[in-house]
């Protein structure tokens, strides 16, 4: 086992453990904390894939903003005070569907012949990403910023409530 593989497992195991915690924890706040563990470990996976920019964005947006938002929503909707039944009666079917999907997708990924060399990472610098984002992908980039603005305005309008409430 090379040192890269050791690092891979050091980051991949917390990712999967965190994900299992998110979907099985009996306490919703524990669930959110497991989500933070999982998201930060995914940032480590991004660094292993030499995508440092995305790793930084991951820590900032997911590790910071998204988890805090989720915790706030939990506080405001009082999920904690709800009865202990966090899972519906459909749980066995959910496990069956997820398991079937996992078997099929892992099997198809392992059995596929990839067209080029799949053992070497090609390092893509932040500079290259920036150049491409603002030349080739300029229009989708602007559309994405518009989507963000509309979503945030919509969130404010939805959450604020009616006049005089």
């Amino acid at each position, binding site marked *: 086992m*090379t040192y*890269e*593989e050791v690092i*891979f497992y050091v980051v*991949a195991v917390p990712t999967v453990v965190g*994900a299992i915690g*998110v*979907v099985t924890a009996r306490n*919703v706040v524990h*669930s959110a904390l497991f989500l933070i563990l*999982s*998201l930060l470990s*995914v940032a480590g*996976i991004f660094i292993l*894939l030499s*995508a440092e920019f*995305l790793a930084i964005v991951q820590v900032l*947006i*997911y590790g910071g903003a*998204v988890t805090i*938002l*989720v915790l*706030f*929503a*939990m506080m*405001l*909707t009082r*999920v904690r005070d*709800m009865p202990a*039944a966090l*899972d*519906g009666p459909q749980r066995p079917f*959910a*496990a069956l*569907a*997820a398991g079937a*999907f*996992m078997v099929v*997708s*892992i099997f198809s*990924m392992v059995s596929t012949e990839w*067209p*080029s*060399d*799949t*053992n070497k*990472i*090609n390092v*893509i610098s932040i500079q290259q*990403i920036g150049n491409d*984002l603002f030349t080739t992908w300029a229009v*989708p980039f602007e559309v*994405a910023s518009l989507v*963000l603005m509309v*979503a*945030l305005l*919509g*969130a404010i309008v*939805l*959450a604020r409530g009616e006049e005089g409430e």
Partner: protein
Amino acid sequence: MIPINDFLVLSSILFSLGIYGVLARRSAVLILMSVELMLQAVSINFIAFAVYLSPQAFTGLIFAVFVITIAAAEVGLALAIILRLYRNKATANVDEADMMKW
């Protein structure tokens, strides 16, 4: 070096756990967290394909940037809708929000 299959298997596991969470959980906030897990799996897949298979175009990396952007917008909107639901129905469980069920 790490073969690409390791990353793909990891993202499959993450995605399946996300599917399980979305289908099994009742609270909308927990479902949203499971959706986040699935989006993470997709990002890992995109980046792995970009750095291993298309080093010239690296479209996957750009796509991962957009996935993160849209995920941020989606979380903001979804939590606003959940708050609204809680205010109107005094619950955030998806199986109790059945106003449109015929």
